[in-house]
């Protein structure tokens, strides 16, 4: 069987970078969602 050690290393590096990027994007998405909810005061009863 061919040795794919180099590809495994590449997989680890790429997957780690993408995971980090996705975590950052998730944080930004959640921050934005919270800001929108606060701005438009959704879910709170009208006084």
């Amino acid at each position, binding site marked *: *069987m*061919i*040795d*794919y*050690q180099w*590809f*495994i290393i590449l*997989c680890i590096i*790429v*997957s780690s970078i*993408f*995971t980090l*990027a*996705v975590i950052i*994007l*998730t944080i*930004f*998405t959640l921050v*934005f*969602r919270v*800001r*929108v909810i606060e701005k*438009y005061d959704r879910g709170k009863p009208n006084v």
Partner: protein
Amino acid sequence: MSDFFLIFSVISIWIAVLEAIVIMAGAIKFIFRQNRSPLTIPENMDNYPTVSVLVPAHNEEIVIASTVEHILQLNYPADKIQIIVIADNCTDRTAHNLKVLKNKEAYRDRDFMILERTGKGGKSGALNDARQLATGEWLCIYDADAAPERNALAFLVQKAMEEPELYGAVFGRNKARNRSQNFLTQCINLELVTVQRVHHTGLWELFKIGTIPGTNFIVKSALIQEIGGWDEEAITEDTAISFEILTRGQLIALAPQAEAYQQEPERLGVYMRQRERWSKGNYHVIIDNIHHLFNRSSWRIKLHVLYYAASYFWFMIAIIISDIIFITNIVYQIIALFVPSIVSPFIFGGDIFVFLMIAWALMYYIYVLQINLALAADIGQSNIRNFIVSVVSYFTYSQLFLVISVRAFYSLIMDKLFRRKTKWYKTERFD
């Protein structure tokens, strides 16, 4: 050989994930910037240009009167707007309904023309006939089922006035007015929201790339004249003309506040026919423009061609291969429970298969994340129901894209082989 397919799939999915990450980062930048700047509705429109609004309509008796009323009520100086509705080869009451509307007291003084035509060329032919009569400096196109919001045209022109020399066209956003009708329309709504609030914004923010969406856009009359009008052979005339505009060094700008509602297919058969037409049209456009990758065209056109080619050819092939590998391995593992000696044809060295699963999981996660970013940006749409639909839609609605793409590709090959003329399906409307 199976190793090659696996590595090809993993690398292709990585590139798809990278594209998604880059576009989403651009969209987040755009959304945060837009959130900081207040919405200003244009008040003084004295220096705004004249606009001819063209509405092609083929047997649209159900929706046409409502659409034209929305256009007549647009917040734009009445003396600067000309409305031409093209009753294109109609065999129903489209023209009659338009005449009734035109005779209403409130609209008698408006520059409102009904053009009854029997010529060929479908939507492109209708637009080409109408542009001969158009007097506006800009042309504005609305489909027959559109319901533009009151300030939609004003926002489109406002954006055009920012860079009148550079912007050849400006497009707004389209929303599904029947989004709650059934599961299909809910999924189409999510796709529409995501394409417009993530893909369009990301591409515009990072690369100043835009594509005309077929309705709710304006384009310079002189530019259309220079291009020679809409391509009557093109199935997706909007994408075709977008490339023509970019080729001439003009940009297609995004005016995110310019919103219009449209009707989406409510039945699977109607949806499949509409999307097959779009896919086939986009294949044609990619083939017609692939030469830009190898000549001295600008980087923006190259990137645009690459974006389309990757979405419709490369990623599609990679997803099909990875799906085959994934399903085959699952089936073999189930069989192996009863027949331990059986071996899957896709056995790989090391942990490569695990990394295919990780790449796939990342793609799925970013798919759901993109939808939910888009939903958060569209007031009132970020709710539990839409979140559940976004999670489920990948395994249901999105897989239709593969079926549609393969069928459209097969149909394209058959057209080429047997020199068949492409049939143009009009999307069915619903009451």
